[in-house]
């Protein structure tokens, strides 16, 4: 029988209102009579949470030597600093499970994953973590290997953590979206399989994330979150169905809602025909999103590769910047793999501890970086035009 629920007046406030509440879900886990250990952990978790709300400090520390044999990632050690008061969450590790590309599951496999987690852990999951992985929250150290054994028997593997390649993730791409300019799911699967060693055996100064978006809408926000963002694009003209444009014109204010919102003003509408100066299109996708039946990405499709974004920890937030303006994305993806390996080779050798690749580029300079990885500078790599029009050369450089 599940233990009596802890008194939690402060976090009970989060049960109020029409929105879903994580407190409600943790309480359900704490009352799950089929999972006695999990319910005890969830009950103690409520207690720690209540205590943190009361004292406005966290009671978790992370890291340490914890994981499964042979792997340097996939388990994030979490320890509670009040183990005597909350013994069932003294260890409450997080397990990252490598998700399938595009997050597609059968209902059967989801049930089996939940059964594994009910058997070994707290029963609390996070579907999905910001990394993209399936996240199992709350595993005791002794339960890590049995959980891993059951996961691998089901065909799942751990995801990445620490100073390594993190679990590559992608949008649903061609599986569900008409704008996908390349097969994001196939590339994600291929990179995951190719870079198993880099994923499970940390050898870098810090984390390295790949995120694949099928089009510039960038539904997985790779430009803000991935060290290497691979974003679908096209290099020919936007496809236009003029009849469908005319239909939209009868429903939308084309001038206000589409034409005037083009960031480079490369579109015009004369009342009968939409014209686009494709040489000035920056692929913002606004017109295509506004008139999906009339406009579509061009037919010569591939991706732009960008490098260097990160959410802030040491320095400020960085967005990725262009490193390869256009590349056809086709198996076996050798160009992408060789580029990634060249970058790792340089960064692993010269990067400082906890320095992301974007910070490394800022430190050594883009010119030096490009020279070292063997890429020619291109105008598309310029983030902002220089504000000072005067360029001074040394006498001998003129």
């Amino acid at each position, binding site marked *: 029988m599940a233990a009596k629920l802890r008194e939690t007046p402060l976090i009970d406030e989060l049960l109020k209102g029409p929105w879903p509440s994580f407190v409600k879900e943790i309480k359900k886990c704490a009352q799950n009579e089929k999972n006695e250990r999990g319910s005890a952990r969830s009950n103690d978790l409520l207690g720690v949470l209540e205590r943190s709300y009361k004292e406005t400090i966290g009671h978790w520390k992370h*890291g*340490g*030597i914890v994981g499964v044999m042979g792997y*340097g990632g996939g388990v*994030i050690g979490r320890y509670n600093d009040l183990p005597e008061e909350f013994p069932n969450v003294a260890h409450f590790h997080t397990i990252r499970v490598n998700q399938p590309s595009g997050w597609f599951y059968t209902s059967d496999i989801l049930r089996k994953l939940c059964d594994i987690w009910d058997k070994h852990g707290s029963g609390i999951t996070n579907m999905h973590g910001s990394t993209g992985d399936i996240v199992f929250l709350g595993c005791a150290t002794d339960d890590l290997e049995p959980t891993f054994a059951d996961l691998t028997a089901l065909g799942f593997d751990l995801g990445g953590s620490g*100073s390594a390649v993190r679990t590559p993730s992608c949008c649903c791409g061609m599986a569900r979206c008409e704008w996908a300019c390349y097969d994001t799911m196939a590339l994600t699967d291929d990179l995951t399989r190719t870079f198993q*060693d880099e994923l499970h055996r*940390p*050898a870098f100064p810090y984390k390295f994330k790949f995120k694949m978006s099928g089009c510039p809408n960038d539904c997985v926000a790779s430009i803000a979150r991935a060290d290497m963002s691979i974003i679908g694009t096209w290099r020919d003209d936007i496809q236009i169905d003029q009849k469908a444009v005319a239909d939209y014109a009868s429903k939308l204010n084309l001038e206000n809602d589409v034409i005037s919102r083009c960031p480079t003003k490369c579109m015009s509408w004369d009342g009968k025909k939409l014209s686009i100066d494709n040489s000035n299109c920056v692929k913002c996708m606004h017109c295509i999103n506004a008139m999906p039946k009339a406009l579509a990405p061009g037919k010569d499709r591939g991706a732009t590769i960008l490098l260097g974004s990160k959410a802030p920890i040491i320095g400020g937030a960085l967005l990725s910047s262009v490193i390869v303006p256009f590349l056809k994305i086709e198996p076996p993806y050798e160009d992408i793999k060789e580029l990634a390996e060249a970058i790792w080779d340089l960064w692993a050798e010269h990067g400082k501890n906890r320095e992301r690749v974007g910070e490394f580029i800022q430190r050594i300079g883009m010119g030096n970086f490009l020279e070292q990885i063997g890429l020619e500078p291109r105008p598309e790599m310029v983030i902002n035009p220089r504000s000072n029009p005067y360029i001074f050369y040394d006498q001998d450089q003129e």
Partner: protein
Amino acid sequence: MGDEVTVSTVAEAMYEMVKQYHGKKNLKAMDLTKAMIEKFGGDNCDKQLCKQAIRELIDSGRCTYSYVGGSYIVLPPT
């Protein structure tokens, strides 16, 4: 020409280094790699060989990974 440097030779040298620095300094995979290339010479030992040596150390359980604000290779807890 000197003796061939094997994966096991490098793994052993890496293990000694991890042991020597235990409790004093955390070593990353690249710290070990650079030290081994310096010790055995670039002609005899490269990054690939060091990668295999680290795999041998970890898979045998003689060393393990730890996370302390970064991933390090350390001796397993006793």
